């Protein structure tokens, strides 16, 4: 297999974006191209993989062609990759695979979502489209409810508390203060987060990520090409992906996401490392309970100990062994569904190149991204390294 590196990464700010879909995508592509050290011509790109749920249906079909052309890649093979919130995590995997297999040398991976140009009613309608429609949705569930069911069951089985979840929220808000791209750049005191308005019992407002606009773009290159473009490539050391039952009622447990475990096992094996080797992890915290479960499923905490991990602040930037969501995570950096997975890699790219400014994770050499679709029906895990051994 051909070694693959990320040689460029850029994104828009996540949050309320005033522009149109094309504007956002162009901004992310421009930031990405500007981050490449050498001369990069987009006309040399072999493939474009664009993650998006096409939220709102504004450009539901042929989204990738629509956007590739606009960003100077007319004629390039392009397709939209859709796996709910894990769309660009899987677009990344597709980009990696196309280079690793020798089929391509230069690939653009992107993610984009426009969510805040819809009326509140229409927005709400679209937020529930990635769960099991016939049986879950019509039992009243959208994702806040789905993750609330997981939180309550985890508390029942393992004794985690809502305060544990509040610690995650407070941490991620604190991390986002230093992130110029974050949707919510405000510190939230523990007492305020603990007393948030109820959304889906036991989850409150401060347990839920915001609804964000945003775009992110990555350039992947084969090893030889990467070395010609930069002296500091970020190597993709492991790629893992898996799927699981879409519907909660088909799962044996609500306190673990098997797709995360399977994808992580693949990625760790490919990279030849374990969770103890990670300096940082950008995990999919669409809800605080999702981060708690991720710390267990990725092996950062023992099974049932995710609450303790959060309570003891082991994921705080530069305090524990592994910084968890040093960017602010989905909770505070924001969650523009299809852009989230690529956005996680933008953060890793900066961190491993020591370009993250005030939020720099000390001596970051090894990083993981964890991107989940819906309530865990899909998951992509990637591991990155600063230097190739």
């Amino acid at each position: 297999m051909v070694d693959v590196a990320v040689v460029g990464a850029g994104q828009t700010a996540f949050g309320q974006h005033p522009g149109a879909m094309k504007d956002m995508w162009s901004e992310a592509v421009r930031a990405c191209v500007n981050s490449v050290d050498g001369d990069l011509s987009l006309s040399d790109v072999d493939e474009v993989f664009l993650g998006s749920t096409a939220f709102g249906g504004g450009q539901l079909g042929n989204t990738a062609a629509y956007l590739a052309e606009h960003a100077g890649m007319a004629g390039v093979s392009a397709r939209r990759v859709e796996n709910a919130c894990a769309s660009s995590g899987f677009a990344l995997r597709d980009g990696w695979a196309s280079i690793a297999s020798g089929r391509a040398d230069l690939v653009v991976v992107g993610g984009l979502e426009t969510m805040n140009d819809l009326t509140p009613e229409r927005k709400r309608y679209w937020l529930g489209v990635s769960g099991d429609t016939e049986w879950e949705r019509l039992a009243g569930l959208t994702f806040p409810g789905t993750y609330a069911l997981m939180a309550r069951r985890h508390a029942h089985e393992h004794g985690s508390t809502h305060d544990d979840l509040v610690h995650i929220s407070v941490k991620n808000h604190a991390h986002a203060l230093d992130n110029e791209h974050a949707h919510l750049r405000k510190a939230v005191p523990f007492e305020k987060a603990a007393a948030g308005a109820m959304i889906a019992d036991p989850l409150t407002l401060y347990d839920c990520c915001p609804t964000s606009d945003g775009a992110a773009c990555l350039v992947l290159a084969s090893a030889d090409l990467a070395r010609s473009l930069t002296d500091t490539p970020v190597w993709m050391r492991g790629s893992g992906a898996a799927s699981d039952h879409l519907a909660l009622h088909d799962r044996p447990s609500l306190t673990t996401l098997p797709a995360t475990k399977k994808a992580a096992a693949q990625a760790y094996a490919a990279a030849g490392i374990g969770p103890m080797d990670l300096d940082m992890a950008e995990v999919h915290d669409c809800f605080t309970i999702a981060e708690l479960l991720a710390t267990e499923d990725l092996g950062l905490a023992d099974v049932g100990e995710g609450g303790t991990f959060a309570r003891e602040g082991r994921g705080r930037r530069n305090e524990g062994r592994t910084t968890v969501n040093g960017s602010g995570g989905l909770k505070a950096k924001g969650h523009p569904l299809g852009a989230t997975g690529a956005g996680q890699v933008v953060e890793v790219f900066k961190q491993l190149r020591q370009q993250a400014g005030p939020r720099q994770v000390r001596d970051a050499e090894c990083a993981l991204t964890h991107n989940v679709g819906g309530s865990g029906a899909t998951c992509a895990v990637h591991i990155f390294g600063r230097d190739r051994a």
Partner: protein
Amino acid sequence: MTASRTFNGGLLSEVEGGLLLQSCFRVNGAPAFAPDADHTTMSVDVLEAWAASGCPLEVAPLPDGLDRDVVLTSLPNLVEAASSTVRLHLFDHAVAVVNGEASEPKGWPTDGAIDLDPEMHANLEHAWALERSLTNVSQGAYVSDRTHRLGMGARLGLSAQAGPTWPPRGADVDGHPLSGGGHLQPSGTVYSWTRLIAAGAPSEFALRAPLLGGLTSMVIDLDDGPRGVFLHADGHDANVDIGHRVRLVVRRLYAQDGVLRYGRKALS
């Protein structure tokens, strides 16, 4: 008429030759249906009570005013026979199943009665009317009429695929038949639950969830093995917790394309 007891969220009493089920809901002292109930759901309820009392489920042809598909699908063992003297009688917010003739209920039990706020009740009636109009179109996700009809046996009669697997998956790659798992018992235990605020409700519930103050959803471990996700029945106290026992009753779920769609909801 004997003293009433609660059954499937209604007030059940024995009358001469049969059973009478009256709604326990009141608006300004007058009887009313539960927010998600009607004659169709109460007919299923009283026939389930009839079957539970050991009587055979063979009745004269069902009267007008019911959704026959819903009643027959909810009660897979129900047989309509022209020769049967057991009849279903629809009254004002009450239903009786009687061997012979039945008369209009003369009184309404007060024990177990639940008062509905008149304004909320009127708004819910209006919401159902809006929801049933053809101009009400759900967005973002959609269950087609065909998909809904294919799932009715599982949704109402709890028919399972061999295993038992519920809900049935349809034809699978191993060729397992859709049927063969029998009909599951409508009872189970709460595995997890949540109460979602109205703003988070799926679009199918957008008109009524604000009036109901949100939706309570539960993952239920069915007594026959499989697990399912269910709403709590509207109007009743949804004071549930993990480990609580629930019974699954037929209620209105929502309306789509001008048609009311029914399913099982949990009642604690």
